[in-house]
């Protein structure tokens, strides 16, 4: 195994949970459903509209943690993360990224700037995610560039600002979760080897 591959092995082991890409697909689908429910063209009452995605998100979390968690443990084994190695990432996530996303949503919803701030923040967050979870995976660079391009659509007159645009940002996030998750899974299988050694009966 070349040294570069061993570095990838180190990165995947260090961030094993995040590379289990199939886990992110149900969450992506739930976000897409939520985004569709936010569209004004969808005939839903105002009271129901914001809550329609909740059961889908609940099912997605169940699939992600229980069903796919079991699948990964059975086929790829278990790794206990060393959380002390990721203190900076955790702090940045909770104290910078999530507040920035919330603030960007508020800015876009209240002041309707010509550039979608939330899409810009998501683009930056995706790149930070890629870098902090082992690098590689160029599909996230493409996704980040896509978000930046998407943020310019209102300025170009292609997309209206406001809550409808926020729904579109959430939908795009869902697409990135689903496609990114699938590509993460493929990349992880490539790095860990395609041989399925899931007979765990005597180990």
């Amino acid at each position, binding site marked *: 195994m070349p040294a570069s591959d061993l570095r990838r092995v*180190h990165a995947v082991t260090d961030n094993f949970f995040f590379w289990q890409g199939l886990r992110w697909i149900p969450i992506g689908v739930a976000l897409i459903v939520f985004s569709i429910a936010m569209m004004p063209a969808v005939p839903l009452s105002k009271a129901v509209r914001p809550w329609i995605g909740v059961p889908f998100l609940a099912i997605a979390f169940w699939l992600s943690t229980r069903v796919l968690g079991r699948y990964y443990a059975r086929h790829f084994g278990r790794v*206990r993360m060393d959380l002390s190695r990721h203190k900076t990432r955790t702090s940045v996530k909770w104290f910078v990224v999530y507040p920035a996303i919330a603030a960007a949503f508020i800015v876009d919803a209240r002041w309707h700037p010509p550039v979608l701030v939330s899409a810009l923040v998501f683009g930056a967050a995706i790149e930070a995610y890629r870098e902090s979870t082992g690098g590689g995976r160029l599909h996230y660079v493409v996704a980040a560039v896509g978000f930046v391009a998407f943020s310019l659509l209102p300025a170009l007159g292609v997309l209206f600002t406001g809550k409808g645009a926020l729904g579109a940002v959430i939908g795009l996030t869902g697409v990135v979760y689903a496609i990114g998750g699938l590509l993460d899974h493929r990349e992880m299988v490539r790095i860990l080897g395609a041989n399925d050694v899931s007979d765990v009966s*005597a180990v």
Partner: protein
Amino acid sequence: MSAPFEELADLDRLVHDPSRLAILTALSACKSADFLYLQRLTGLSKGNLSSHLAKLESAGLVMIEKEFIGKIPNTRVSVNKIGRTAVERHWKRLDQLRQASLEWRPEPT
């Protein structure tokens, strides 16, 4: 001064073996990993992986614990401080040798 290629012979063979280096590199990135993960990673048979782990354990570089998850036996492997130092030192040495080999020029005869 000896050529860097001659110094390759001085590398710790216990750590430098490709499978053991992959195992130690992976273990140095986490608290512990189970047998299945290491088998998936190295592509070794159960017997070969057990043999490599036994060598690393007897050298005092890793710890092996057996437990049950539900009714399924699970073997968990972790690298200890000595093993972590050994693999870090080994990577540093490899990087130094790589650098030295790039800078090395044969002496004129």
